[in-house]
């Protein structure tokens, strides 16, 4: 066990190892359901990692990341359906749409701190959902958008696509954190006033963190739209299924840790798939229960608590 921990401490090596295994998996295993599970895990890892950059490292917990997820999904789909822009370009456009919408939201919400910030972002995500829901002539409203011919048709293709997105996200996040900007983020998390006193424009850097986070969330939204072929405002702007789930994954895995999003999404995806058969429509019950249990007994998340133990 301690040897494993030792390897995991070297993030680059361990990531490469996992990457190689992940790249080989579809060549060996042809079970579609198994691939689907891993695709879901990677999808949530990306969402968790991009949330973690803002919530974990910069300390700005947001309860409304569904805003960027939904914007990305809708940007890609609407560009394709209305203007005929290729869905591949849609991925980039989705990221940009997510980042663009995050700037005004951030500019307003960053006036607030802590819980107020978290909930005001949530309010914005609800506003976006309502706009999309009622602007029927443009967005089809509650009918949603059906993508008849998404970018790829095979599960393996999606597998490698989300793998690439995951790698890109994880690399960007750890690259940013290693740069000066990353230290600014950490400084803002630890003590915003002190960071400001040291000459860090805290609002500007919080916006940057939010922008990067929203960019990748948007891309994942576009991936989701392609993968499931169908989006509607209730799915992609969902509070419980997207916003809260993102927070849960990171808090469960370990907030502000490199491995947290991955561990969290493995557990959440496997559990919710497992319990889906038992509780059917109420599979969110397990989310709620998990949240309560984790916060009561593992306040720093799985990775955070393991780290604390092995540091001694």
């Amino acid at each position, binding site marked *: 066990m301690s040897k494993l921990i030792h390897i995991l401490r070297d993030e680059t090596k361990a990531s490469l190892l996992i990457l190689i295994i992940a790249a080989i998996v579809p060549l060996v295993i042809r079970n579609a359901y198994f691939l689907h599970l891993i695709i879901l895990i990677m999808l949530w890892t990306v969402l968790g990692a991009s949330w973690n950059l803002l919530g974990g490292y910069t300390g700005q917990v947001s309860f409304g990341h569904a805003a960027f997820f939904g914007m990305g999904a809708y940007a890609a789909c609407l560009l394709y359906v209305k203007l005929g822009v290729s869905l591949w370009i849609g991925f980039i456009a989705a990221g940009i749409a997510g980042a663009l919408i995050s700037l005004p939201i951030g500019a307003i919400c960053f006036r607030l701190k802590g819980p107020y910030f978290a909930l005001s972002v949530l*309010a914005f995500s609800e506003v976006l959902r309502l706009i999309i829901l009622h602007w029927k002539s443009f967005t089809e409203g509650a009918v949603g958008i059906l993508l008849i011919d998404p970018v790829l048709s095979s599960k393996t293709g999606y597998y490698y696509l989300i793998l690439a997105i995951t790698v890109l996200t994880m690399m960007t996040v750890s690259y940013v954190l290693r740069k000066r900007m990353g230290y600014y983020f950490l400084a803002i998390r630890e003590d915003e006033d002190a960071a400001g006193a040291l000459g860090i424009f805290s609002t500007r850097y919080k916006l940057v963190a939010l922008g990067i986070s929203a960019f990748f969330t948007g891309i994942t939204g576009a991936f989701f739209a392609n993968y499931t072929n169908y989006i509607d405002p209730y799915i992609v702007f969902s509070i419980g299924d997207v916003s809260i789930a993102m927070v849960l994954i990171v808090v469960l895995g370990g907030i502000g840790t490199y491995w947290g999003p991955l561990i969290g999404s493995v557990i959440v995806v496997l559990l919710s798939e497992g319990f889906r058969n038992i509780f059917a429509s109420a599979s969110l019950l397990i989310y709620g229960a998990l949240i309560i249990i984790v916060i*009561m007994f593992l306040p720093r998340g799985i990775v955070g608590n393991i780290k604390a133990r092995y540091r001694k």
Partner: protein
Amino acid sequence: MVSGILVGGLYALIALGMTMIFGVMRIVNLAHGEFLMVGMYVCFWLFKWWGIDPYLSLIISIPTLFILGVLLQRFIIQPVIKAQAPGENQILLTAGIGLVLTNLALVLCSPNYYTVLTPYSNATVLVEKISVSLPMLWNFIISFGLTGLLYLFVMKTDVGSSIRAVAQNPDAARLMGINTDRITIITFAIGSALVGAAGSLFMPIYYVFPAIGEIFTLKAFIVVVLGGMGSAIGSLVGGLTLGVVESIGAAYISMGLKDGLGFIIFVLVLIFKPSGLVGKTRF
């Protein structure tokens, strides 16, 4: 407009519980709307099984929610606060409680929409040539009565002044020999009981389904922010504002967008007057 004011009275009652919990414990209770849902189901089942009138069911729904509040606070929320968890963990915890309640309701009560049909559900009275829905008028009066009772309780009793002391400064209150744990439990329970009462009051004019809590959690939060966090008068002002804005929006703009209007007002207040309309900041 009038119905907006009347609904606003109920919003105020819901938000009052949230603002009280916030004022004393510094926690935004994201399960608040779900408590409302529980209150509504209590009222609904009482009506269905024993034909108890929704207004009479206040006697049962208030204690039920009070006990629920005590249990949640004592066994789940308090240990987390004691461990000095960061603020976002505490919000997430209440969100988790909300999810569990919603989904339990989904399992136990099925996702159907239920409503309570009473002889007076559609009754109206004419006040100065304006026809006013009778149950809504009653709701308004009862929620103001409850608010008044709460005010007396907080201002005149020993427990009430302890609650105020803890809200002002928990450490000082503890030094003065106040059992702050007990006070927070009582506060949380009262906050839950208030929203339970609101649940009973809502039942004659609204329908209940498991996911209703989310909507009302957001509404309560908007009202609380509109009025100013932790301020009781603020939640009254905020509740009335939201009610009026929604009914005007529904009448003149569009029924579906009325919820969006609430959010827009919310954002405007956040930008221009972050301390809330009443302006008593407790940040």
